[in-house]
């Protein structure tokens, strides 16, 4: 566990050069919120979230950090666990900040419990979709596999669009709300499968 936490801390040190862009992103979201441009704020937030996932992969490839991994006394699987944990933590930070911002700027009364459940649902869906992208990034690298990052976003929009078009969006939402325990369960299962696939890909990689 200590090694995994070290790998997590390593990811935060790794993305340090991008920290200023990350903070600047929040200023932009804040600005959109003040201007009342809700769609721009949400879109930019999603874009930021997806870009943040890319940072460690980008830096790894740009600086040929595989050589560092090759000489460091750390298991490859630990590096993978650290990366997933980093993505979960950074997504959690973004989610919390987004929630706080939403709460601060909300014009109508918010029922906290409803709000928590719906945003937790979105967060879980986002993690599930992210779980599909990470093995792809390990397999193809960030230059060849950049497009994979945007697949979750496109998928999310397609699913919502189709559900809406076939008029099942509302009933689907009701069903999910009634069976809310399914969401974290599916998230954990999908993430576990994704981790195991990434470990397999990374173990075969030649540095």
């Amino acid at each position: 566990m200590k090694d995994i936490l070290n790998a997590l801390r390593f990811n935060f040190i790794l993305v340090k050069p991008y920290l200023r862009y990350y903070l600047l992103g929040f200023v932009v979201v804040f600005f959109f919120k003040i201007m009342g441009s809700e769609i721009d704020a949400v879109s930019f937030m999603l874009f930021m979230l997806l870009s943040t996932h890319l940072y460690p992969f980008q830096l790894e490839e740009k600086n040929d950090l595989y050589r560092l991994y090759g000489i460091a006394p750390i298991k490859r699987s630990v590096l993978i666990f650290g990366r997933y944990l980093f993505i979960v933590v950074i997504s959690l930070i973004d989610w919390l900040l987004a929630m706080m911002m939403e709460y601060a700027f909300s014009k109508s009364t918010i029922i906290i419990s409803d709000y928590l459940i719906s945003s937790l649902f979105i967060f879980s869906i986002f993690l599930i979709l992210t779980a599909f992208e990470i093995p792809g990034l390990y397999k193809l690298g960030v230059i060849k596999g950049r497009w994979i990052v945007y697949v979750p976003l496109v998928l999310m929009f397609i699913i919502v669009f189709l559900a809406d078009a076939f008029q099942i969006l509302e009933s689907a939402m009701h069903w999910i709300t009634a069976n809310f325990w399914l969401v974290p369960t599916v998230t954990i299962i999908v993430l576990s499968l994704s981790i195991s696939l990434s470990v397999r890909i990374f173990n075969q990689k030649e540095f």
Partner: protein
Amino acid sequence: MSDAINVKNISKIYPGFTLKDITFDLPKGYIMGFIGPNGAGKTTTIKLILNMIQRDGGTVEVFGLENIAHDAEIKEQTGVVFDNHYFVDEWTLNDINRVMALFFSNWQSSIYQKKLEQYQLNPVKKVKELSKGMRLKLMLAVAFSHDAKLLILDEPTSGLDPVARDELLDTLAEFIQDGEHSVLFSTHITSDLEKVADYITFINDGRLIYTGIKDEFIDSFRLVKGGKEDLTPDVKAHLIGYREYGSGFEGIMYTEYANYFPNLLSEKSSIDNIIVFTYKGTNGL
């Protein structure tokens, strides 16, 4: 005398290149020069030792431990210097201290700080602001700060000025003094090896040409010279590689054969000449 590295019959197959049956032992307390022309397979061999790539055959032991099963244990005690650094350009030298402390259980920040001071490296500088020589010193500082018993250097001196190269050689000589530390030093600047190496392993085109004591290696070859008329088919058959020029030729021959041709001028060869002529001979140049 125990060994720091035992490599036995390792092979690696790539499309268009095969590293085949490389075998050598590096005894503890010595420096081994690992030589060969570009593309000979030196970096591939080093990566196989470090378990950075998967081998297709053979075995590797470091400190008597099988290198795949004991990967982390071996790497705790192994310092590596590549031809280029393995850090993020934007990191400061202080960031590297924090990163290495996460990876190496025996990392000693105080030694790292001392080494930076000794090498006159400013800890708040970014990696991208360092010169080639300073980056080499940084990698050495990292290697020494986790108490590496084995140092593996892959072409560290290419692009370094003679002063920086000389400093590195002094550092290596000091490193092995206690008889417990060892160095595997891959380079094609062979004059460096003539100064510090005790052993030589020479590979060419993925094949092992020689492994053993450096002086025996140098003594086993002779640089022979002669006029055009001296380059008979018999002489050609005994030359490992040669070069013809206007008034005659020069080439490399095993010492035992050089005695068969008393008419040829025979002299001690440099390691450089051995590599160059072996390469020419192998490639029909």
